[in-house]
Structures are given as C-alpha cells and as structure tokens.
C-alpha cells in the first residue's frame, strides 16, 4: 500500500472510531436498550472516577504553580554549580504575528522588558506575515520602541506563497527562526546555548519565566531532549470577556494544568520553549500542519527515538480570551478555536507513519503513545455526546418494559450522580479559578466578582455546545480528507 493510502487510512481511524461509537450506542439504545444502559453506566462510572482523579491532579498542579510561580528563579540559577553557567544561555523569543495590532503586540514586548532576567541575553524576533498590509508599518513602530531594549531585536517578513508551505503559523515561525539562526551565527552564539521560545502574539510572560526556563534547562539531565511547557492562562482580558468565553478558557487552562501532571502524555501546546539546537536538528516547525505546537514535539520525539520529554514549567504565560462583539459571534469564535485545537488529531497519522518507519523506538512506547493520542481525541469527541445525548436514549426509546426494569430505574439515578459529581468538581474549579485570577481593574465593578461566581451555572450549556462537537467536527473533516483552513482567532483587547 502506498504511503499516501496508509496516511488516508490513518486519517479516517479517529473519526471512524468516534462516529462508530456514537452510532453503535444509538443503535443499541433502539434495539437493545438494556445493553446500551449497561455501557452507559460503565461509562458514567468511569467518568466519575476520571473526574475525581483529574480534579485531584488539578489541585496538585495548582498547588505546585502557587508554590513555584513567584520563586526567584534567577537567584536559583545563580546558585547552581559553576559548570552550569546561566549567563551563557541566550533566549531567542519569536512572536509569529499575522493581523494582530499594536495594542496586542506592545503588551507582549512590555512583559518581556519587565522580566527579572537580563535583557542582554534576549533576542526578540517579531515574525510578521508579508501579506498583511500593515506589517511593515507596525514593525517600524515597534522597532523604534523596542529595538534597543534587548541584545538583538529583529523584524522578519514571511513571504506569501512559498512552495511546500501553507498559510499557517508554523511556516512563519520557521522563516523567522532561520533568519534568527543567521543572526546568531553572525554574533558567534552557539546554538546549543540558545533556548527558543515561540509565543503566540498575545502572550505576556510572567516576570520569572526566563529564570524558571533557564533553571530547568540547566538542571535537566538532557536539556536538548526536552521541551519546556509553561501553564497557559487567559488573564490578559479575563475581566472584560463574556462569561461564556471566560469559562471555556479557564477550563482549557485547567486542562493544561492537569496535563502537566501526566508527564508520559504531556505534549507541547501553544506557547512553549525548547532547545534551538534541537529545533534546527529537526528542521524547525512543520510548514504545512496547523497543529505546529504539538507536531514540533513529535518531530523531536521521533528524532531522538522516543527519548524526548516535555518538562512542565510551573509559571504562567498569559494570553487573550477569544471573544467578539456579540454572544453568537463569541460562540462561533470559540467553536472555531476549539476545532483548531481538536485538529491536533492530525498528529495521529503523522506520528503513526513515522513510528512505522522508526525501528529505534521501543514497540511498547509506540503502542502507549499511539493509544494515548487516539484515546484522548476519541474521548474528546464522544464524551459529552454520550452523557448529554445518548444517556437518556434507552429510557426514551426503551418503552414501558425497560422503565419497569431495575436498570431502567437506576440509569437516570447514576447519570444524576455523575452530574452531582460534576457539580462538586465545578466548586473546586470555581475556587481555583478565583485563586489564579489577576487583580480586578479599577474600571470593573465589584459586582463582576458575583457574576464570575454565578457564571459557572452555564457549564452544562457549554458542555453541550463545545464539549465534543468541535472535536467530532475536526475528526469528520480529517476523515473526509478536507484540510482545515488556518484562521487566526479574533481577540478583543481592552488594555489593562
């Protein structure tokens, strides 16, 4: 079978599994309601255990974040053994930019300036897309404001329509990284002393970010065989965003915190850092895949024959919550963003094909990682549909006979128990979300605190809309062989 056909088969597998799971349960609910109810009860019980387990992980991760986020990491670097010289480390920071305006970009650069880390060790690259008409104008303005603030400041302009490229962030970042490599070469800075951080344009780093990153890089047994993942939070405009968008992004942030505790599954997401040497070795980011943030991890994982990991950094990088001027538009934007995240399912065929050709990675590791990848995406695409749509089906379709049976009576009770557990979990999430919230801006009424507590009641509604459908949509699109168009997420920023 040709590699193209294998790829197509692998692209079909996640969507086929998700759809067949849903179809199987629906048909079972019609033909064999008791069997369907048994499966739903097993799933409900699994979900309850999983919810408790993951919430406990969230608490642990949160505890660690609170403990480490304000640690003086540069001082910790200074106290490392003499052979670990933090002063020799350079940070290459790339901001791929498309349509983001100065009101988005300036705070990101300001945040770099405020870092408790010598700016003489920072090389900042603003990677613009040439096709955006205002790119050069914005670049000039920023250069005037920030050029002298860092060791080097570079504006790059990614040409449109290069061969073997799609109009995606990875292509722009790669173009910028290659130009930065030339710059570093001219400055005689060795690549193995450079850590590259690729940040979304709206990313504002914590003051301790680079100290924390340097510390972990220097103390890692295999610094070049590691990516460094901070905790993404969406605090930039959290006080101004509508409830719906805020809840979704807080949940996304918490999910990432949970993932940071599951190291064997941990994959880079959004803004992250890694060794520049490794990035060059693996030939940079993918230029034709939307999920560049996770694919770059898999490229490194395969390059190092499975001996590659993601080290969680318990410090935050703050980004914008995606929302728009109206409720419906916000739902649409959130849906598109989640679909783009769920498009990470394209990693499955990518990784599977490379695993097939790689003989060095242990078979058991390959199986584990493929299973994790597949299971996480299939579960994402079906869990909310099973709980919200399929769980009531045996009762609705099973008729009087089914309802007279103990299982017919117990099914809604167990589903109700699951919802109660979700409520308890929500309380914990509410408390943790309050602890990670930035201070209330002066122009925001204190009543917003009350709104932010009450808004959690819309969680079931969010689950219904954004729980599984974006993932199922993405998998269906991948199944059909249609590519996802990359579109930047619209973000509204009121400068805080």
């Amino acid at each position, binding site marked *: 079978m040709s590699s193209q056909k294998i790829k197509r088969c692998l692209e079909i597998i996640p969507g086929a599994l998700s759809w067949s799971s849903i179809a199987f349960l629906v048909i079972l609910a019609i033909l064999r309601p008791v069997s369907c109810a048994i499966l739903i009860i*097993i799933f409900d*019980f*699994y979900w309850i255990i999983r919810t408790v387990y993951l919430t406990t992980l969230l608490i642990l991760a949160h505890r660690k974040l609170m403990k480490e986020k304000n640690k003086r990491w540069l001082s910790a670097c200074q106290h490392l053994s003499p052979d670990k010289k933090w002063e020799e480390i350079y940070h290459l920071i790339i901001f791929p930019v498309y349509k983001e305006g100065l009101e988005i970009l300036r705070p990101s650069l300001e945040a770099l300036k405020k870092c408790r880390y010598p700016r003489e060790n920072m090389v900042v690259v603003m990677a613009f897309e040439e096709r955006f008409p205002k790119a050069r104008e914005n670049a000039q303005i920023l250069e005037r404001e920030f050029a002298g603030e860092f060791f080097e400041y570079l504006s790059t302009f990614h040409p449109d329509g290069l061969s073997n490229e799609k109009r995606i962030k990875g292509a722009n970042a790669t173009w910028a990284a290659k130009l930065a490599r030339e710059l570093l070469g001219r400055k005689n800075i060795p690549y193995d002393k450079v850590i590259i951080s690729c940040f979304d344009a709206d990313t504002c780093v914590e003051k301790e970010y680079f100290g924390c990153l340097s510390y972990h890089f220097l103390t890692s047994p295999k610094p070049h065989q590691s990516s460094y993942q901070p905790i993404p939070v969406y605090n930039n405009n959290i006080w101004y965003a509508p409830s719906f968008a805020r809840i979704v992004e807080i949940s996304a942030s918490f999910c990432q915190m949970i993932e940071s*505790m599951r*190291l064997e599954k941990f994959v880079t997401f959004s803004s992250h850092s890694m060794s520049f040497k490794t990035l060059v070795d693996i030939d940079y980011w993918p230029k034709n895949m939307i999920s560049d943030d996770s694919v770059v991890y898999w490229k490194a994982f395969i390059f190092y024959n499975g001996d590659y990991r993601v080290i969680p950094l318990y410090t935050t990088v703050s980004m914008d919550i995606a929302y728009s001027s109206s409720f419906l538009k916000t739902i649409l934007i959130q849906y598109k963003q989640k679909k783009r995240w769920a498009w990470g399912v394209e990693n499955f065929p990518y990784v599977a094909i490379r695993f097939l050709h790689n003989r060095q990675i242990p078979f058991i590791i390959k199986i584990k990682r493929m299973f994790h990848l597949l299971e996480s995406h299939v579960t994402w695409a079906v869990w909310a549909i099973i709980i919200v749509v399929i769980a009531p089906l045996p009762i609705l379709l099973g008729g009087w006979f089914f*309802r007279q*049976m*103990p*299982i017919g009576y*117990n099914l809604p009770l167990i589903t109700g128990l699951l919802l109660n557990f979700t409520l308890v979990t929500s309380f914990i999430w509410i408390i943790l979300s309050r602890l990670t919230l930035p201070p209330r801006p002066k122009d925001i009424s204190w009543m917003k605190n009350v709104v932010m507590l009450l808004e959690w009641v819309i969680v079931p509604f969010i689950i219904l809309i954004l729980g599984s459908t974006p993932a199922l949509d993405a998998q269906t699109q991948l199944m059909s062989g249609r590519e996802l168009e990359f579109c930047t997420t619209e973000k509204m920023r009121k400068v805080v």
Partner: protein
Amino acid sequence: MSSEQRIRAALFYIALVTFLLGLPFILSSSLGYKFNRRTFQFTKTGLIAIKTQPQGADVYLDNRLLNDKTPTNINELLPGRYQIKLELKDHYTYARDVDVAQDKVTRLEKIILFPKRPDIKQLNKEKISFCWIDEDRNIVYYVNPEDNNIYKSDLNGEHFEKVANFIPLLPLVKKWKFSWDRNKLLYFNAHQIEVISLDKNNEEHGRDSAFILDYPLGSINEIFWHSDNYHLIVVADNRIDILEARPGSIPVTLVKLNKKNAYSFYDFRNDAVYFLDSQIASDGKAYDNLYKLDLFTKFYPLQEFIKLKSNELPKD
C-alpha cells in the same frame, strides 16, 4: 520521580482499583442482582420505588426501619412478598403488602399520607340547624332554629351577620331555595311555602319580609324559582302550578300529572320545565314520557299567560 508524580501514580492506581472493584457492584446493583449469602449465588432482585405526599416518611420493610426516608428506592429485594409501612409524624400510617418480582420495579408512587388532625375551623357563630353555600358569591348561609334567624358569612366564617328572620313551618321543612338573584329565599313543606325577602330595599315597597303561602291543591314535591325571580313553579304530586311570590297569590295549574312524585327539572336559561309523566297508549298500557313545558316569556309574557289562564285557556 518527584513527589507529585509519586502521588499521581498512587492516585492513578487508587482510581483504577476503585473502578475495577466498584464496577461489578454498580453493574450488578443496576441490573438488580444481589449476592445471596445463604446460597452463595447472585440472585436477580427487584426493587420498590416509593414516593409519598408529603415526603420524609419513615419506611419500614417487614417491620424493619430503613435509613432512608421517602422518596426512596428499596433495592436488591429478593423476589417475594414484603410488608411496607410508612410512618410520618402526625399522619396516619400507611401499610400494605407488596409483591416484588425479579428484574421489575414495583412502584408505590401515589401515596398520600393524611394528617391525623386536619385543620378544621368552626365557621358559624350561632347555633344552626342547616346551612348552604352560595359558590358564586362566596357566601355561607346559616339557619338558626332557636331564634328563627338566617345568618350569613364569607367562606372563612368572617363577616358573620344576620340577614333575615323566618316563621317556622310545621310539619318540617322539605327544602330551602334561593331565587336566582339571591334576594329571596323560600322554604316549604307539603302544603305551605314561606318566602323571605333578603333584600332590605323590598321593605320600602311595603312588602313583608316573610310571608306564608298555603297550598292546599296537593302535596308539594318541588318548587323552582322562575327566572324572573318573582314566580314560583310548584311541582305537586298531581300537577304543576305557577304562582306569584306574594301574599295571597292564587296558583294557576299549567299541567295535570298522572304520575305521582314525578321527576322534574327547571332549565333556568331557557325557561322550560322538564317533567316525567305517564300516559295511556293505544294498547291500553301506561308509558312514562319526558315532557318539556316551555315558559319562554319573551314571546309569551308569563304575566299575560297567567292572567289568561286564570280565566280561560286560549284556543288554538
């Protein structure tokens, strides 16, 4: 391995063990199975679902008090007959035997627990022998046989007041009836009718507030107020008469009846009297028929009819 990862690993295994150990119990319980310790076998069970109004009753199963209160389900019951007893303070105990079948839900979901001391309130403030309720006006009328007065109050017994007095009839009264406008009240025995005016304005016209009409023509079975609130339709054992509700009124016979104590009904909206009477047919046998006597006054004013009838019946 960091301490978090060790905790996480422990949590994972705890979750896994909980899932693996808990699942068989949850599934068997959901499916209605119970481990029978006597036979060391899983036996299919049934359950009883109980809901009561009000909630919160203690549940006894075969005289054993359960922990849960209603609404509740008693799960994992081996097939058989059970005695269910529900107790709630200050309410009557509910008890019944229930048959539980395997793999079935026995529902006791329409149980009302009635209070032992219902909320009863005495409305009358005087001694009464009779009362009736005017639903349209939310008024209760009371008859006091000692002072021969009629009282009224609202439906809560408030605004209790005297509205009229009456002359006692002997022998005993058969029925009390209001006029349609509620301004007059009549009561009657077999040969006497007393009409009481409840409308104080009537006294301005010099009428008595209560007067008695003698009816010697037969034994009265029923009296209807005509829709004009002035005439009375008297159904006696041998005739149907009409008379004015005034002292000295003379009855006019509308129909002579063959059947004694016949059923009769007055349709207020259409001014018609329906009555049952028997008639001899050509075969010589008596048959009961239902008749309608139209008293529609728009086309044939009753007043004129009565005047005419008292002298001579009109010819066709």
